[in-house]
Structure formats: C-alpha cells, structure tokens
C-alpha cells in the first residue's frame, strides 16, 4: 500500500517536471517577450515576494485581501444556501414553486453580473455579491438534491420511536446529507475562487490577486502576470486540499470519500 503511494508520488512528480520542461522549451523556441518561461516566472515571483508590487503592496497583502473576499462571500453562500437547500429538500413544493426564478438565475454566469454590480453596489459588497453568486448555487443544489436521497430506513428507525418532523430533520436528514453538502461547498468554493479573480480584474480596488495579474499585463510584464496566475492556482489547490482533508476527518464513518 505504502509502496503504491510512493510510486504514485514519483509518477506525479515526473509528469510535473515534464510539463515544466515542455513549458520552458516552448518559451525558448518561441522566444517572444510575451511568453515567459519557467525561470522568468520564478524570478518574477521572487521579486514580488521580496519587494511587493509596483504600487508598494506586498504579495501577502494581495493574498490576504483576495482570501478575505472569498471567505466572506463563501461564508454568506453557506449561511444562505444550506438552510434554504434543506428547506427546499424537505418541502419540495417550495422548490417547485421557486424554480421559475432560480433556474434561469443559476445559469447566468456571475461575471455577467459585473457591469450591474459596479453601478448598483459599492465597495467590498461587490466582491461579496459576485463570489456569493458563484458559490451559492452549487451549495444549494447539492443540499436540496441530497435530501431525497436520505435512506428511508434511517427515517423509519426514528419515526417508530415517535420522532417529530423537526427531530427527523435535525438528527437524521442533516447528518445524512452532510457529506453532500460538503461536496457542494467544495465546488462552491472553487467557483467562488474563480469569480473573485474575474471580479478583481474588472476594476475597483487595486489590491487583489486578479488585479495584480492585470496590472502587470498592462505593462507587458507577463512573467509577473504568469507568476500571479500560478500563485492563484496553487492557492486554489491548497484550499481544495484543505477541504478534502476536512471532509476525510469529518466523515470517518464513510469508507469512501468522493473527490
């Protein structure tokens, strides 16, 4: 078992190294100032980390600001999405009647809202709204889709002993649906992460990782932009992994965890 994991790690590492080599090769072959190679990107990243960006903001500030925006929007999405999803799952008529409004809205990409959001909302709330939009629907849908999948037997076990509806929801439905809620949260976090970058790129505060990428692209310093991209990707990966670990711990009672 352990040997298998070592093999997987080495294989994974090889693929990564191969990709980096191919990237560097492509940059050398094309030899364009607009396609930075691995070394350029690393240099740019080091410069950002050590000296901050042109406006004097440190890399840590950018990361912290973006993460704060994400946390706020995501938190709000969970706060609204989970109870609403449970409500719609337990009372399908609520879901059916609100579908006419929810379904079309679900398919409007958060980025399409940005022009309106710039005008109608102000300041931090803009980011809050955009991220909330992105994260809310996966959470809502996972939650409400999980409710009908609750095992009837588990419900009956409680019903036989005289459980009320509220008890059933609290003590049987919620624990049953929790793995699905978590999965929805993880997807929501991912979507929210992508939305924040787009939202930051489109104007507003000049702090944030998305803004960082755009700033340097404007100045044709694409190695810095790519460094920003890579950082964003890594952070997103870390968040996802953290989530998976949390899921594994929470749901020790499951013998399989979906990825």
């Amino acid at each position, binding site marked *: 078992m352990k040997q298998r994991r070592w093999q997987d790690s080495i294989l994974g590492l090889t693929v990564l190294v191969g990709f980096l080599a*191919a990237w560097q090769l*492509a940059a050398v*072959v*094309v030899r*364009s*100032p*607009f*396609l930075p190679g691995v070394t350029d990107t690393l240099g740019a990243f080091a410069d950002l980390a050590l000296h901050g960006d*042109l*406006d004097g903001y440190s890399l840590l500030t950018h990361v912290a600001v973006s993460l704060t925006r994400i946390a706020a929007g995501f938190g709000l999405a969970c706060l609204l999405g989970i109870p609403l999803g449970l409500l719609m799952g337990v009372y399908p008529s609520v879901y059916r009647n609100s579908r006419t409004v929810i379904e079309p809205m679900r398919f409007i990409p958060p980025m399409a809202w940005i022009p309106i959001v*710039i*005008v109608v909302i*102000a*300041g931090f709330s803009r980011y809050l709204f955009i991220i909330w939009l992105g994260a809310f629907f996966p959470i809502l849908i996972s939650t409400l889709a999980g409710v009908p999948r609750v095992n009837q037997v588990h419900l009956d076990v409680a019903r036989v002993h005289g459980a009320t509806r509220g008890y059933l929801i609290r003590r049987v439905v919620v624990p049953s649906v929790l793995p699905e809620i978590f999965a929805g949260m993880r997807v929501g976090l991912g979507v929210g992460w992508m939305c924040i970058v787009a939202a930051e790129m489109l*104007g*507003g*505060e*000049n702090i944030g990782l998305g*803004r960082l990428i755009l*700033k340097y*692209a*404007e*100045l*044709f*310093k694409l190695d810095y932009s790519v460094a920003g991209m890579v950082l964003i990707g890594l952070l997103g990966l870390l968040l996802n992994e953290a989530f998976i670990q949390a899921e594994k711990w929470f749901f020790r009672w499951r013998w399989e965890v979906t990825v």
Partner: protein
Amino acid sequence: MSGKLNWMLVAALTVAALVALSSSYLFHLMGPSPGESKSLRVGHLVADELHQPGWCAAQELGFISEEGFEPVNSEYMNGPAEMEHFAAGELDVAYVGAAPFLTARAAGVDIVAVASSNTEGSSIVAGQEIRGVPDLNGKRVGSPGIGTIQDYILTRVEETHGVSFTHFYAKITDLILYFERGEIDAYIGWEPHPTRAVVEGIRGAHTLLTSHEILPGHQCCVLAVRGDMVRNSPEVVASIVRWHVKAQRWVLDHPDTAEEIIANYSGLSVNLIRAAHPVVQHNYPPYLDLTSMRIMLEGLMASGKIDPKDVPDLDSFLNQAVDNSFVTSLLQAQRLSPNATFEPQVAASLPRVAMAPRGVVSVPVSR
C-alpha cells in the same frame, strides 16, 4: 497493455496540442500584409474622440476611403489594452497614448509612432473638499489604468508636489461613478470625462490641475503603425499619415462641426465636448514631441513600469520608436505652408451615427 496505450495516447495528444498552440501563435503574429487587401485594422480608445479626432473625423469626412482603405475599427478600454491586442497582431494602426506606446515598444512590440494625435488634454478633477494639491495627500485618486499616460501624470504630480496618494484603477467611464459614490476623492482621465463631473456638478467637482499645468505641451495620443509597414510598405504609411494630417487640419479649421462629429461618435453631448475642448491641444503640424516623450520615458523607467534593461540608451530608443519623417515628407510634397487647409472632397452629411450611442450622458443645454 492498455495502461501503456493510455500513456502513448496522452503523450501524443500533449505533443499535438503544443504544436497546434505554437503554430497558431506564429501564424497569428503574421497577420495580413498591407497592400494585399484594402481593409486596415484601426484601433482607438473608448470615448476618446476628443484626443483622437483624426480617427473619427477622417472616417466621417471620407479621408480614409479616399486613400483607398476600408477601416475595420476596434475600440479598447485604455491604451495598454489596445497595445496588448496590437502585440497579438490584431491591429495595423493604433491611436494610443504615448505612455502605453512607449511601454509596448520597450517590451518588444514592433510598433512605430508616425504622427501626433494630440498633446496635453487630461485633467485631475476633485471634490469640493479638496482645495489644492496638498489636500490630495493620503486620498484615493482614480486612474484609467496603471499603464496609461494619465497614471504617469499622477505619479509626476506626486513627485513634483511631494504628495502621496493611492491610485485606484477603473474603466474611464466608470471613474465618474466611483467618484460619485465617494469611493474615490478625485480622478484623472482623458477629456471630456473629468470635465463631465464638473459640468454635472457631482460633489462640487472642480478641475484641480490640467496636463498643461503638470507638463506643458506633453505628447498625449499618437498615431502608430506596425513597424514592418514602415520598413516594407512606406507608401501605405504615407497614405495613413495623409488622412491623419488632413483630418487634424480640418478639425482645427472647423472646430464647431468637429465637436459635433466627436459628440456623435462618442455618445456624449456636444455641450460637454465644447466645454472640455480647450484643455486638449491638437498640435499642427502634428509632429511628435520628443522632449516630453523623453521625460515620460525616464519617468516610466524610474517608477519601474519600464525595465531599464529594455532601454539601454534612451535617445536611440526614441529615435527608433518615433518617425516624424512621414509628416515632413507629406507637407513638403504638398508644397504647402503649415497653415494651408484641406477641404474634404466628399461633403459630410451630419448627423451620421457610426456607432450606437454609449454611456449615460445628458448635459443641460445652456445655450
């Protein structure tokens, strides 16, 4: 065995993808050669017709089609964005600010400036609580982008007046919104957007500084073309410069009609254009001002926007980036004095709206 097949498939697909990617990029760089087709891809900035009247006037009056071109127009949010697309080979001609032009050139874009579109023409407008430049200290000032000439001007103000403030970047048409909501205390932009806040009386806005007061006579927007066109098809460039010079001349001779054309194309009201017009200079003959461009270049390098390694020698860099000879040859060929006028051969029929009116504009008519 199937595992091995999978690996081969993955490897083959990756290689194919890389090949496709690089070849499409290389093809993209080439673009259509001028002379092969009549169409010419021209870029300009959003709501910047006051700085770039050469573009809209020339279209409106038929100067471009007189030269035998069919312009394909593209609009961009700011100079740096336009330069990004130019670098990707999507444009042949660009009306763009001097700072993004210099930045692009330093980064290795093959672009050459052949005429001036305007000088000065930007203002810093601030709310009524800001009486003078020292009041800007510690405030938030809007700018249309970190790579724009307006941002360079902001930095220059900071240096010359010994103040420091936060730069807040947004789309030019959004700056007034942020200003209205109090998210920024002042902003700089290309006219007429700063004057718009004054005319509409937002937060008691008043013009704090104009570019004339910051760097008199500084080059602002330029007419730039692809470097390979200058080298390989100078006659095409000459035609482009001719339409431009004719248009610049015409604008100077017919300011009222020019303002109407600009209002049409930009979707802003004539009164606003009229109010903002005095801030903008359309220098004639439209030579590019190397002195101010040199100062700008130094400033951009000092603030880290241009890497000094890309510009080992400022003067030779500028001499290669800028080519005033087309303007010179044109005027000589016409054997005209600098004050001669060009009359359009095709009568303009106004109003003709070439583009859908954009933005929210209604300035009370005070005439």
